[in-house]
């Protein structure tokens, strides 16, 4: 009797889990499914979950860039350039800062950490006004370098917090032992700190990657009319803004844009969430 009620309860919980998963997945499923549907099925009076006659036509029109006059690769290249450059800069700068706050005691340490918590919350739609005017006078509008600067700086508060936890987790004894063996600080950094912090760097760089890859407000504001400079989020919404809305192309563009992020996320899921939760909630 008892056993049966327990298996019943387990089955009930599992059913609930499957239901949550299905509801959560539905919008993503619908995006991918629509991307493979021909126009007649997209605008049919009875929508079907799966395409009856799957087609690559939507993907082809996105990749050829018929709507905007430039191929998809152009925008992919822009997004990759901006994202990779800002991730590299952000990792270098935040690793230095993370070592400072995790390994040294100094006067403004706590103030610096609190300052990071505060600036992390500054609204981007407010600061974009001032940065637009600054970048205009510096000639950094319609310029991908301007975006790299902004993405690097805006990811720093979170990446420093995340990396701080990973640096702090490296046992101090190992560094001390190496120092006794006569290794200088540079050698200790390359031989001990870097290899041990590497997993943390990967998790943190995924955060920085996703932030830069997804960013919308600054790209929208800085990349005014120069289509060739658009990053992928702006390219996706470009389809959306034009009179007759071609949902097949939008969903195809959105699928191509979203899948890399999801893949990244699933690969480093565990570390990523641990780091984020540690950064946001508790070390």
């Amino acid at each position, binding site marked *: 009797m008892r056993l049966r009620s327990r298996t019943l309860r*387990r089955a009930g*919980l*599992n059913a609930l*889990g*499957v239901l*949550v*998963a299905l509801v*959560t*997945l539905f*919008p*993503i499923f619908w995006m991918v499914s629509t991307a493979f549907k021909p126009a007649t099925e*997209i605008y049919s009076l009875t*929508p079907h979950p799966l395409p009856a006659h799957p087609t690559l036509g939507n993907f082809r029109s996105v990749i050829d860039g018929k709507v905007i006059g430039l191929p998809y690769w152009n925008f992919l290249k822009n997004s990759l350039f901006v994202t990779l450059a800002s991730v590299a800069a952000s990792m270098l700068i935040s690793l*230095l*800062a993370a*070592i400072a*706050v995790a*390994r040294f005691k*100094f006067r403004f340490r*706590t103030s*610096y*950490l609190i*300052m*990071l*918590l505060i600036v992390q*919350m*500054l609204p981007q*739609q*407010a*600061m974009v*006004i*001032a940065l637009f*005017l600054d970048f*205009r006078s510096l000639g950094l509008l319609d310029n991908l370098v301007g975006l790299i*600067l902004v993405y690097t*700086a*805006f990811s720093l*508060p979170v990446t420093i917090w995340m990396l701080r936890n990973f640096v702090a987790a490296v046992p101090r004894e190992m560094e001390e032992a190496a120092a006794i063996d006569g290794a200088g600080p540079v050698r200790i950094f390359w031989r001990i700190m870097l290899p041990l912090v590497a997993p943390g760097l990967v998790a943190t760089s995924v955060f920085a990657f*996703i932030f830069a*890859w997804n960013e*919308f*407000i600054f790209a929208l*504001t800085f990349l005014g009319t120069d289509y060739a400079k658009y990053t992928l*989020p702006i390219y996706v*919404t470009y389809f959306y*803004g034009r009179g007759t*809305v071609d*949902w097949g192309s*939008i*969903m195809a563009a959105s699928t191509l844009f*979203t899948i890399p*992020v*999801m893949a990244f996320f*699933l690969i480093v*899921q565990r570390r990523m*969430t641990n780091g984020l939760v540690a950064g*946001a*909630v*508790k*070390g």
Partner: protein
Amino acid sequence: MVRTASGQPGRIPGSQDPASPAGRAGRRGPAGPGSRDGGGARQRAVAFVRRHHLTPYVLLLPSAVAIGLLLFWPTVQIAEFSFQNYGIPQLTGQVPTQWVGTANFSAILSDPEFWLSLRISLVFAAVVVPLTLLAGTLVGLLLNRLGPRMAAFVSSTAMLAWATPAVSASVIFIWLTDPDGGVVDWTLSRLPSWLGGGAQWAGFSWTNSALPAYTLLTVLVVWQGFPFVAVAVLAGLKTIPAELHESARVDGGGAWRIFWRVTYPLLKPIFLVLLLLSIIWDFGVFTQAYLVTGELGNRDEYNLGIYAYDRAFTMPPSYGIGSALALILTVILLIITVGYVRASVRQGAVQ
């Protein structure tokens, strides 16, 4: 807290001053005429940094410069512009910018569109935050009771919703609710009337007025926001010893009672941080609201952030009014941030 925030930027540059000449000397070293001299300068710089315990400041310098120039300075500028008349003539240099006192603010306060956008932001946060926390907590509790495989499966799908970029999530939900061909209207029009369905839903437009648009945004933001809450709650639940729950169950507590008597008090600090973070995110939601309300133009659907952006950038742009609105938004969010920082400090996150 506020004192720390405002005193901070003044102090940091001061603390860097001694460090920067050292850093510069170190970089110049190898470029000097003789490599031996260069090495000497470098060694002297290293010795200087060591002797004065400047290493942490040198390490912090790049991040402090980047944050100072690209986050802190623009905030100061916003505050400055909000007391100026700053539009196209001032931008092109035909007319110098002038200080106008609080004229921008009195214009805003007597503007019904400002009050509407503020109300939309407040009501939206008041609805979405509790829903996100509720959904996230329920899924977190469920994940904690599922077997390891099932839990991994469900949390992976939740992670996918979280990982979906704001732009993609927005266009997906706009497509789902499209009047021609969207699956939501189709489903609603076929539901029996006792479930709220009916023919009136066929071709219903979700984005043409504020209430349906923000209903759609609510579902969208909860969908994207609950996984973070679920993961954080699950991480907190893992820290609660199983014996506590068991002894509560032996004492005859139901699930509801156990949650409020055992789980909630122990996770209270986590809930506080999640609550404040959610308020900050949902009050300031931009990308999703911008896209769902049809980019710019539907003024009766603006939230505060979009209204500030519209006043600053839509022709004719008024950077002064836009900055004043942005300053109001920033101040509101900073007040909540103070609560967030205090909660984090109390939890010992800043050590």
